[in-house]
């Protein structure tokens, strides 16, 4: 399976890295909105998280139910090694484009 990431997947993985142990739906959505400067939709965040979980780039575990959430549990996400590698590879790819590495020299 290819480790190529879409822009939104990159943003979600970066958000999880930034948030550390406190990465769950609300905080991830807010961080993604902050990083992309666009109001992210929670449904899109969860769809992406499910896809990343299928690719084994993130792991999830259920938290405790809290009253603010109407007794519903939080789903905490952590990044796996392959997820971290994919983010690093994506940032290196972007870096190469900016530095012009591998591009023909300007005339």
């Amino acid at each position, binding site marked *: 399976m290819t480790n190529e990431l879409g822009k939104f997947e990159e943003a979600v993985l970066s958000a999880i890295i930034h948030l550390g142990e406190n990465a769950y739906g609300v905080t991830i959505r807010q961080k993604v909105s902050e990083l992309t400067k666009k109001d992210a*939709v*929670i*449904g899109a965040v969860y769809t992406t998280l499910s896809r990343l979980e299928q690719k084994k780039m993130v792991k999830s575990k259920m938290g405790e*139910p809290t009253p603010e959430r109407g007794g519903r549990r939080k789903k905490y996400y952590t990044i796996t090694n392959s997820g971290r590698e994919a983010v690093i590879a994506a940032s290196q790819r972007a870096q190469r484009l900016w530095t012009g590495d591998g591009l023909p020299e300007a005339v």
Partner: protein
Amino acid sequence: MGDSKSKRKRRPWHTSAEDLQTSCYVPLHFIEKYEKRTSHVEPQILSAESVVGNVKYLAISWIPNYKDDVEPQLSLFDFNQAVSEPAKNSSRKGTLKKLEPESKPSALHFLPIDSSQKAPQICEMALLFFLTKENRDSLIGDIEEEFFGIAEKYGVRFAKAWYWKQTVCSCFNAIWNRLLVLAGATALWKLMGRLWPGS
């Protein structure tokens, strides 16, 4: 103190509250953790609260120990984990703290909640219908958590509009994903039909 008490508002997620007149024992670490985090002391039992989802909590009021103009705080403890009276030779006895009911319960604490502060029920139903089983509970919980935060900050009308936007976009996203899967399966079926000899 009286004035600050009257300012206390009921949290919007509570659906009902019953006046609790008996003392209860709760774990000491729960009390110490709260006291350490805030400057509030003198925990007293306020009521037993049912929140959305029928989870019952013991509502504990905390009196600030420094300024009179600071509002008393409210914390919630799982009602099922509270003990009415520990056994005499119980090893847990030293780890529990006895809480007394509030000396003068105010009628203000038990005001029915304003229904306009509730999250839109129709949105929750739509989310339950369209979302996949694995994510629906945590997703609805997330929207609800943010809803009350937004309602406190920007008002209920804005929060409701935000809730609707999240619902519509999330449902559309879920439908779109299912259509993509269906289209993929149809294409694969057609391809197999062409490749399979004699079909």
